[in-house]
């Protein structure tokens, strides 16, 4: 599957052929850093001064690289497809190889960053438990009621939350049985067939 680059995008990336491959390498590193930690406009000015070009060109070049990386990583395009897509830009072979390496080295991490943007529910982080025996309450004395207190830790993006819950021994066993059934389902032949064939 080929990447389709817009005219504007091609123009922005065109800047890269005017500079040294070492500079392109540096831009690549900056692009990945920006993807991981957010962009920092001051870097553009420093680089623009050193290269004696407008900071806007530098910005376009880096952002063009960032977009190239995210699009290729999102689609998980193969090496061959990436090379063919980049051919359109008319870069030197050295530059093409550099871009390919940048893509291959960083695509796993870029995909991880992108997947955090996708809609999701809070996910399981940890479970703590405690066994108690209730002896009395305001309404009734002389009790012997075993209970299990649970603390369910959930994570939603950067937010961590903990819910305190309670259950009784019989329900605990029922929960275990039900969730074990869920786990067993993944090993069923139906699921295995689907997982094997949709790749």
């Amino acid at each position, binding site marked *: 599957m080929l990447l389709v680059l817009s005219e504007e995008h091609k123009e922005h990336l065109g800047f890269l052929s005017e500079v040294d491959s070492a500079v392109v390498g540096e831009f690549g590193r900056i692009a990945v850093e920006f993807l991981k930690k957010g962009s920092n406009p001051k870097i553009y000015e420093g680089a623009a001064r050193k290269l004696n070009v407008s900071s806007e060109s530098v910005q376009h070049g880096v952002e063009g690289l960032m977009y190239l990386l995210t699009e290729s990583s999102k689609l998980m395009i193969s090496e061959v497809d990436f090379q063919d897509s980049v051919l359109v830009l008319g870069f030197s072979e050295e530059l093409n190889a550099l871009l390919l390496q940048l893509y291959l080295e960083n695509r796993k991490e870029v995909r991880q960053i992108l997947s955090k943007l*996708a809609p999701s529910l809070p996910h399981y982080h940890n479970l703590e438990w405690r066994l108690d025996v209730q002896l009395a309450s305001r309404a009734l004395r002389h009790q012997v009621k075993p209970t299990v207190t*649970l603390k369910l830790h959930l994570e939603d993006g950067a937010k961590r939350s903990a819910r305190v819950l309670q259950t009784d021994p019989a329900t605990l066993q029922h929960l275990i049985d039900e969730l074990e059934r869920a786990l067993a389902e993944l090993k069923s032949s139906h699921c295995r067939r689907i997982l094997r064939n949709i790749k």
Partner: protein
Amino acid sequence: MELSESVMKGLQTLADPTVFDQKSFTIFTEVAFDSLVSPRGESVLGHPELKHIDQTTLKHCHTAATTFILEGVKQNADKSTISSCLEDAKFLNERVDTFYNSFQKNKRKLESLLSSIDTCPPHVTDAEWRLEYCIKNSHVHKVNQPSYLISLNTERAGASSEINFSCTMEQLQDLVGKMKDAAKSLERATQS
């Protein structure tokens, strides 16, 4: 067992044969216990067999009797405690016996009713699950990962609610493993 003056007065009125004859007393006792155990039962007020008794007095006695019953269940009072309280309220032996028999009959049900009045964290009643295979989303294509969506049904003071969360297979295994640890500890605790 400590009882308030109002409760004692109510019980004394109930003991009085000029207010409650034997038949009315028996019916009253039955209806009083019934009103606690099955809330949709017949009400003491407006009961056809008790219409001849003044309604205000009836209401007072009913409150006194039910308070006494609940206090007895709460404290797990034995026969001698119940009997001595009733005798203090001038109950005749026959009435003490009638009352105590009903008390014994309904004690179990009343105990479970009282034990369900509880402040506690939301009580988990069930777990529902869904197994999905994510193919792609708007940000990443070719995800190809299975994931579980778990929904824990909880109840608190009659109101039910849900906790929804997702997890991978490894995370679900971790969750089930920890629950099994808790269950094993429970078993060991009950055996020792």
